[in-house]
Every structure is written in structure tokens, then in C-alpha cells.
């Protein structure tokens, strides 16, 4: 359980960037989209988003909504897109390598 939490924290950044690359999303929407796929403490999303904005991987803009307060939308920047391409590549590579390692272990059993 604890290990899985650490895994999720690590890939949260990747998931968030993938989602906002598809379309601009606001915080709550993003939390829902992520929770659809992985169970994660949604609170961690906001500090992460702040960091992404600070690192210039995405920008924010406000949009009035009919229900509730104005929504803060997140939009990926070109810099963020480049970064995302890199980390997706690295992630795939990493997963393949780890799977290979596990498979290799099974052969000896």
C-alpha cells in the first residue's frame, strides 16, 4: 500500500501533464480525471500544479462559471510539451526495463 502511494506520487506529474495536454482543465476537473484512472490523494494535485506553473510547464487563466467561483484553468506551454514528450519517453523506457528485469528473474525460478 505504502509503496503504491510512492509510485503514484512519482507519476502524478506525468499524468497531469498528459491530461492538460489533451485539453485545458481546471483543478477539480483534473482531480476527477485522474481519480478515474488511479486512486490518489487529490490534495497533492494543487501544490504540484503550482510547481508546474512555477517551472513554466503550464500557465493558468481564470474563466467565470455559472456554478460556483471562477475556474482556474491550466494550459500546457510549449516548454511543458517538450518536457512531457521527454518524460513519457523516459517512463516507457523505465517500465520496459523494470518489466524485463522482473521477467528475467522469473526465468531463474
Amino acid at each position, binding site marked *: 500500500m505504502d509503496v503504491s502511494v510512492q509510485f503514484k506520487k512519482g507519476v502524478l506529474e506525468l499524468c497531469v501533464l498528459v491530461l492538460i495536454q489533451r485539453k485545458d482543465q481546471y483543478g*477539480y476537473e483534473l482531480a476527477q480525471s485522474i481519480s478515474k484512472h488511479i486512486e490518489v490523494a*487529490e*490534495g497533492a494535485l*494543487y501544490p504540484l500544479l*503550482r*510547481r508546474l506553473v512555477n517551472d513554466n510547464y503550464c500557465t493558468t487563466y481564470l474563466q467565470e462559471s455559472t*456554478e*460556483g467561483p471562477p475556474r*482556474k484553468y491550466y494550459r500546457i506551454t510549449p516548454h511543458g510539451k517538450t518536457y512531457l514528450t521527454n518524460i513519457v519517453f523516459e517512463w516507457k523506457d523505465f517500465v520496459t526495463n523494470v518489466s524485463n528485469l522482473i521477467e528475467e528473474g522469473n526465468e531463474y525460478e
Partner: protein
Amino acid sequence: MNKKQYLSILQTHLTSISEVERKELLTDYESHFTYGMHNGKTEEQIAHELGDPFELVREIVGDRFTIQDPYVNTKKTVSIPRNIFIYIGLFFINIVIAPLMIGLWSGWIGLCAGTLGALLSPLLLIPEYIINHTFSMAKLFASIAGIGIGLWLLIAVMFTYKGLLNMSKSYLKWNMNVSRKGISK
């Protein structure tokens, strides 16, 4: 836990980050609650989904810590009297420690010389033969024993070199750290 409790935990514990940031994050969480409730969730449900607020605080403050570190440091060095005392203190510590270090290194150099001498002792038989035209078997064996001792000393030299180098390096680093940002907690 309801919305108010959740937000007040964040509010009271997020003191080490800047006012602007705290407000911004709190607005984020507040609107998260609002949107969740619009979607028919209870405050408790949303709080549960957001996760342990204390864990969250730890994460946020932890993040800030690494980012704001340089800022905190520059702020520390502003205090001039404090710096003066740190330099005076360092000066006295160095007056004691630096000669000690030099002494240790000199000892090490001595050890090196001894090792070199022991290892090269058979070569001394050559000049003796040239000058005195004598050759003693006992001296040859003694010098071979010298090589053995030299090899053992070589190991000691390497070990002490590493130890001394590490010690000197960390001492220098400590000095620089102290003079740059004051004595760390």
C-alpha cells in the same frame, strides 16, 4: 472532517510559505470543495478524497523548503554582528585545528618517506659496493625485509591518505558552510 476543519488545518500549519502562496492554495482547496459539493458530494467525502491534510502540509512545506533555501540563507547573512562573531570564532578554531591538520599531514609525508626508503633500500647496496667494494649477504636480506616492511607501510600510507583527505575536505566544507550561512542547526 468537514470543509472548515480541513481548511483551518491548512491555514494554521502552512505558516512557513509566503502569504500569497498560502492564500492561493487555500483558494484552490476551497473551490475544490465548492465544485465537489456542486457535484453532489458531502464535505466529508471531499476531505477524504483530498487526503490527510497534515500529510499535505508536510508535502507543501517540504517543497517550499528546497525552493526557498537560498532565500533563507541570504537573509541570514544580513546580520553583520552575527557574522563578525562567526568569523572570530572560526579564526580561533582554525588557529587550533589548522596546525593540527598540518601536523597530521606532515606525519603522513614522513610515513611516505619511510615507505619510500624501505622500498628502495636494496638500491643502497649498489653505492655501498661502488664506494666500499664490500658486499654483505646479511645486508641484502635485511634490505629485502625492508621491501616487505615498505609494502606494508604502503597500505598504511594509502589508508591514512584517504582518511586525512576526507577529514580535511569535510573540515574545509564545514568552514565554508559556517562562514556562508552561520552555524547550522
